[in-house]
């Protein structure tokens, strides 16, 4: 028993120190000056017109992206749930593809399309639709909206699909039966019943959108909270407004999270899908269906396609498509010092962080399900806290807390990068282990013990084989997320020799001449690895993949 408590205290202390303490530090720095409570920092922050504008813009961005992802994701989920058509399984996977490249990476490609002399303007000019090129990008705000929408709608799609999957069709039939029209039924029955899933997806998308650092940086759009925080890191020790901004982000995230969770608890009525006879209708207007699905798929993959084209283009100037192609940038990716360092670092960081995730996640999950010790609820809460802390907040907290210490990221950020990667994905692994273990009947372990097996044999022969597919799939997903992680990577990796892939892409994208092309080639490399990981996870998790992108 003592051993159990020792392990419990050790894990809890670790999580408190590296998760709660940075948050506490942010809180102290935002509200206390020279040991006294004060709101001066906030007054100073809010009083600044540009910062105020950034806060409003971030809110606006979040709301718009929730709206645009809803317009795409909700109808899509309905089509896939309610209709039967050929190629549905493969199309479902294709619609998840936009997730494989973060908008930060695909942004480099899309700029080539929608810039003033990009493909779209050239096409419109050639077709005679416009006379002068249009500035689609404008300040860059529109570009951020487009890229975030195309990247995030699969989250909406997955959440609504999963709600519909738990939805009893006969509740709708009961409504039709009582004379309600399709619209009345949707408004009064279907929508209220899928609202918890919708709410959860909207919260995730909103938080993701306002804390996204990479995309605005690529579009050089500074009037957003995330960028303001990033710019404040340089003078973190002299200017406390960065802390206030991080606190505001944290406050929004936590409030939204708690509100969503409470709302879902209150309204979560799993009706349970009843095997209604042939509830999937055969669609009659096949041409309309396929053409709209493929058009949407094409649009959502434009960033990826252009990223690919850009990485192979030798000359792409004043033309719709590149006029000359080359594979030299891929050679550079695997030979250039900077890119090689990036790939090597990212693989190391992600592998170690995933291993930590699997071990820590498994232990916590196991303690929560199997051990009968006091205060284990604390561990439950602690392991879920990373969901509340966006990458940008955690990274900022680390910089603030560990500057001029042994762990100073300027000197050597490896430990903090690995830690931030693994802590941010920990809840998913804990959750997977927890649910796998809950399904694992304790009698199975007891039967093994009764036949003379010890702890290790029982773990090896019984527990591990049963729970490993879930943990493995979770691990792969965690690995791919870490590999292309943006916020923590950009903030924590200051010196070139510690750069992970994302930071290398960012640095390269800013270089004139061949920089963006190489960045794209590196982006494609990351995209392929993420794609493979996602595909394997989908194969293992099947429809449950949606659980990774949900609150509650």
């Amino acid at each position: 028993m003592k051993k159990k408590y020792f392990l419990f205290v050790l894990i809890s202390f670790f999580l408190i120190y590296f998760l709660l303490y940075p948050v506490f530090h942010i809180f102290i720095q935002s509200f206390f000056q020279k040991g006294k409570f004060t709101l001066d920092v906030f007054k100073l922050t809010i009083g600044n017109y540009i910062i105020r504008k950034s806060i409003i813009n971030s809110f606006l961005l979040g709301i718009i992206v929730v709206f645009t992802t809803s317009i795409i994701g909700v109808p899509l989920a309905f089509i896939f749930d309610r209709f039967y058509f050929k190629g549905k399984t493969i199309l479902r996977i294709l619609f998840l593809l936009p997730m494989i490249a973060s908008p930060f990476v695909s942004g480099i490609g899309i700029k080539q399309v929608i810039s003033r002399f990009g493909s779209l303007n050239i096409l419109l000019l050639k077709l005679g639709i416009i006379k002068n090129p249009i500035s689609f990008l404008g300040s860059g705000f529109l570009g951020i909206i487009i890229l975030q929408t195309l990247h995030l709608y699969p989250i909406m799609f997955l959440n609504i699909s999963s709600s519909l999957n738990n939805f009893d069709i006969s509740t709708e039939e009961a409504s039709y039966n009582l004379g309600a029209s399709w619209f009345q039924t949707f408004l009064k029955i279907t929508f209220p019943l899928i609202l918890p899933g919708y709410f959860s997806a909207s919260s995730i998308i909103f938080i993701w959108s306002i804390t996204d650092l990479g995309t605005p940086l690529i579009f050089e759009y500074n009037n957003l909270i995330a960028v303001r925080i990033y710019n404040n890191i340089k003078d973190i020790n002299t200017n406390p407004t960065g802390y206030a901004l991080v606190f505001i982000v944290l406050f929004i995230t936590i409030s939204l999270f708690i509100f969503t969770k409470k709302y879902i608890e209150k309204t979560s009525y799993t009706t349970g899908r009843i095997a209604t006879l042939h509830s999937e209708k055969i669609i009659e207007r096949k041409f309309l269906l396929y053409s709209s699905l493929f058009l949407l798929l094409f649009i959502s993959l434009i960033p990826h396609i252009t990223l690919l084209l850009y990485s192979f283009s030798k000359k792409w100037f004043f033309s719709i498509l590149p006029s000359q192609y080359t594979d030299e940038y891929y050679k550079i990716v695997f030979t250039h010092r900077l890119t090689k360092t990036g790939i090597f670092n990212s693989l190391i960081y992600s592998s170690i962080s995933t291993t930590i995730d699997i071990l820590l996640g498994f232990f916590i999950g196991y303690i929560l399900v199997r051990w009968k010790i006091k205060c284990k609820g604390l561990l439950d809460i602690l392991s879920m806290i990373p969901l509340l802390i966006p990458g940008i907040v955690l990274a900022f907290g680390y910089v603030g807390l560990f500057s001029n210490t042994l762990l100073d990221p300027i000197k050597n950020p490896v430990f903090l990068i690995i830690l931030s990667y693994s802590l941010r994905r920990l809840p998913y692994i804990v959750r997977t282990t927890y649910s796998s273990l809950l399904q694992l009947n304790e009698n199975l372990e007891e039967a093994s013990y009764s036949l003379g097996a010890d702890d290790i044999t029982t773990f090896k022969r019984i527990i591990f084989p049963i729970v490993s597919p879930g943990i493995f799939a979770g691990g792969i997903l965690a690995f791919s997320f870490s590999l292309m992680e943006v916020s923590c990577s950009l903030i924590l990796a200051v010196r070139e020799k510690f750069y992970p892939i994302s930071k290398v892409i960012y640095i390269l994208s800013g270089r004139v001449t061949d920089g963006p092309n190489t960045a794209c080639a590196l982006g494609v490399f990351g995209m392929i690895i993420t794609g493979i990981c996602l595909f394997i996870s989908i194969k293992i998790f099947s429809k449950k993949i949606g659980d990774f992108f949900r609150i509650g």
Partner: protein
Amino acid sequence: MEREILRVENIEKKFDGKEVLKNISFTVYENDFFFILGPSGCGKTTFLRIIAGFTQPDRGRIILNKKDITNLPPNKRNIGFVFQNYALWPHMKVKENIAYGLKIRKYTDEFVKRKVEEMLEITKLKEIKDLYPNQISGGQQQRVALARALIVDPLILLLDEPLSNLDAKLRDELRRELKRIHKETEKTMIYVTHDQKEAMTLSTNIAIMKDKEIIQIGSPYEIYTNPKNLFVASFIGEINVIKGKIVEKIKENLVKIETDEGYFFSDLYKIPNSKDIFLCFRPESITKEERINVIKGRLKEYEFLGETLKLSIITEKGNIFKLSISPYDFEKYRRGENIIFSVEKEKFIILEE
């Protein structure tokens, strides 16, 4: 003259090329409590869903109240439906679930309120009207589903195995409730089930379904005493069967039948086409007077069921017969003992091979 309310003509349906309903036709009259009885997977739920409009038939017509509704969407049919799993809306209170149909029809709040109160009274749900579906018992959920369907005054009410999710005691109770509600509301009801006891106790007419088809339609009495074939005979109650051959016509309606248990004499209402027949009798069609139609055997097993004593006897030829006698004779019988009984000649059921 009974008034026709629903007529179903030649309904056929295939799913993915597999036939699930074949040439279904029948008529239901006003105030009927019409049962569709059949084993699981025979197509009865699909058929009910076709009447409700949730599934389209490949062929055939549905005439409701003299109007062809085959192509009408479900929300324009005015047919009530009680789902097997009740399909109550979890986000609405009991009273809101019940009021829904009237609100869709845009009745005034006052009218809706009054009607809901009435319905709560009929279905005895007054106390729980402000609770949510997950806060009430299975039996109460069932009654809410019934109230919700009845309140809009549908032309007919369809019930899809509505008692199958309840325990035996509750099922008995709700069966009586349903009978009372049918009587009070005078609603025409079509009820799908695989439980012959439910069908026998509640129905005015039963359609027996097997493998996509309707085999026989009739009142419970007709079906019990005059089943069309062995399937119907054994699906509705228990039956003893001996293979036999008509060897002699003794006089009008009386025939002599040869079986491996000896000769039997039976009244015959309809001359069968073939001489090879199944001679059947129900366990309760026996008498202890031994004049003709005698069967001798050894008591193999007995079951005391309260209202009756069920004996299972085995003859020298190895045939097993089930007999049903007065429970008060319980102490007269011992296992292994010889038993002699006979079957009244009027109570034989003769089915063609």
